[in-house]
């Protein structure tokens, strides 16, 4: 089924683009600075004039904070997936093409990482590295490359016995040229699908780390830390925790819907979960 004929994935894509636009234009769209403290206006509910999504415990405008929070989530998601893809696909291509001890070492390492709770791993990494967007990207990619490694390794192993690769080899082309010029173009769809589906997962991980206080520095608005701040006010001001959480769900759901549609259109073999 081509992507153009599917309704939900296209809706997902449209929503994702809206989020990206909101993140880029946040300084122009936000009615207030995201960290503006305004104690007389604290804990105002959804629908307050001037504060459509209400205000938090410091009187900051939630709409403005949610708009700026999109920047952290999208930036970390895109960068972490890109880094994971670059590292995982390169190592996977090398391991799959050459096999032998190179493959053994990388695969063992990948198994070791797979057999361990992702969150505990990143928690540890963030505790060592300290808060920050670059550190989040590093911590998430430190294990995030494994899925890309496994996919690329498997695909390269099966592709390298096909005629077009054998022909390229017979023509005397170098392994690097064969991997980059012949094999990768043939598996790029699978990689694209996996990257889309992993993006949603990594954005949830970022929000979780921020929720636990190990994400971005406290002065940067992030959805996870906004939920954490709202936790104390669940009884009196539930919207503080509800609004940023809905923002995460909306983005991740849209990414997953799009990714699933992409999978059906491009790569029906890739198992869906």
């Amino acid at each position: 089924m081509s992507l153009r004929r599917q309704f939900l994935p296209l809706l997902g894509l449209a929503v994702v683009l809206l989020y990206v636009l909101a993140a880029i234009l946040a300084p122009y769209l936000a009615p207030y600075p995201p960290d503006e403290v305004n104690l007389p206006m604290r804990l105002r509910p959804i629908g307050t004039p001037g504060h459509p999504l209400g205000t938090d415990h410091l009187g900051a405008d939630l709409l403005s904070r949610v708009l700026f929070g999109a920047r952290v989530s999208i930036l970390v998601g895109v960068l972490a997936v890109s880094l994971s893809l670059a590292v995982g696909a390169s190592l996977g291509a090398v391991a799959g093409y050459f096999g032998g001890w190179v493959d053994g070492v990388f695969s063992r390492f990948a198994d070791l990482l797979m057999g361990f709770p992702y969150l505990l791993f990143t928690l540890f990494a963030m505790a060592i590295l300290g808060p920050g967007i670059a550190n989040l990207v590093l911590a998430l990619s430190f294990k995030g490359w494994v899925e890309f490694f496994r996919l690329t390794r498997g695909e390269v192993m099966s592709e390298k016995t096909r005629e077009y690769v054998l022909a390229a080899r017979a023509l005397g082309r170098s392994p690097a040229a064969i991997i980059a010029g012949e094999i990768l173009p043939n598996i790029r769809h699978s990689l694209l699908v996996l990257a889309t589906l992993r993006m949603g997962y990594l954005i949830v991980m970022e929000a979780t780390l921020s929720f636990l206080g190990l994400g971005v520095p406290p002065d940067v608005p992030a959805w996870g830390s906004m939920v954490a701040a709202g936790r104390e006010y669940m009884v009196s001001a539930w919207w503080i925790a509800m609004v940023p959480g809905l923002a995460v769900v909306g983005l991740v759901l849209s990414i997953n819907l799009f990714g699933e549609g992409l999978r059906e259109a491009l790569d029906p073999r890739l198992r869906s979960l």
Partner: protein
Amino acid sequence: MRTAVRILQRVLGAVPLLLALVIATFVFVRMIPGDPVDILLGQGGNVSAAEVAALRQSLGLDEPIQVQLARFLRGLLEGDLGHSFWQRQPVARLLVTTLPATVELALAALFFALAIGIPVGILSAVRPGSLLDRLAMATSFLGISMPAFWAGLMLMFLFAVKLRWLPSVGRLDPALDLRPVTGFLVLDSLLTGNWPALRSALSHLVLPGLTLGLELMAIVARVMRSSMLEALQQDYIRFARAKGVSGWSAVLRHALPNALVPTVTVVGLQMGVLLGGNMVVETVFAWPGLGRLVVGAIFARDYAVVQGAVLLYAATFVLANLLVDILYAYLNPKLSL
């Protein structure tokens, strides 16, 4: 017999991996900025340098790292995991008291995931494209896309704060008295015939169990649906139907056993989600388990607790994987361990 040898081989094969992990944890936890002695003494400035040095020495932190590591590994051989700086208790005892809480929660999550996910998957597969099917699959997408910490807070808000149907935090009503036997509160209250405690323990399990099981539930429903759809198209089902087996009997007695195999596979692969997800869920629901312990210990730089907890996590992981492999071999005799 051969199976027993294989199992033993697998367990022994995991030892080097666990050892590497223990050493890595030992080094990494000391790389976290922040001195546990400072954290222990607090921010108060009226502590003399001599007192700081004495505390550091008594915790064994004044020695070079390789000496500390050697001492830790020697202790490990004797089953000694060291002491918690913060809680002034042997780590082994802390782990033994928190593990039952974590396992109980994981079992509750597994129960919800299977008890809801399997029937939903079957019903969707029997009437593909129906309103129920589309609703179930849309909901399952939501389950995969929702961060657990937020889902937990929202469930808590709805069922504990607004409706007051269920308790919000902890494992047991603090007003109740329950004699500990195994540390599994549901089991303990059954063993001692303490019915109010049983009620309380079960009701405390609902919200965190649902939160932790949400993702797995969605995955189980989707896998169950697709494997059931496949099973229902096989010749043996057509044959059974032609023979006069009624609709539901064909589904449940003939197709279900075959459709369950992929579900078991996926549940096995996802056991890690239950174990790894509990740090967030335990933090949200103030659940006194391993996940909350390790998060607190990382923040407090409580080195020995982090080391012990990571080792226990990893060992549980190895064990869970082994159990799944054994279960596979049992469900599908063509595979061997």
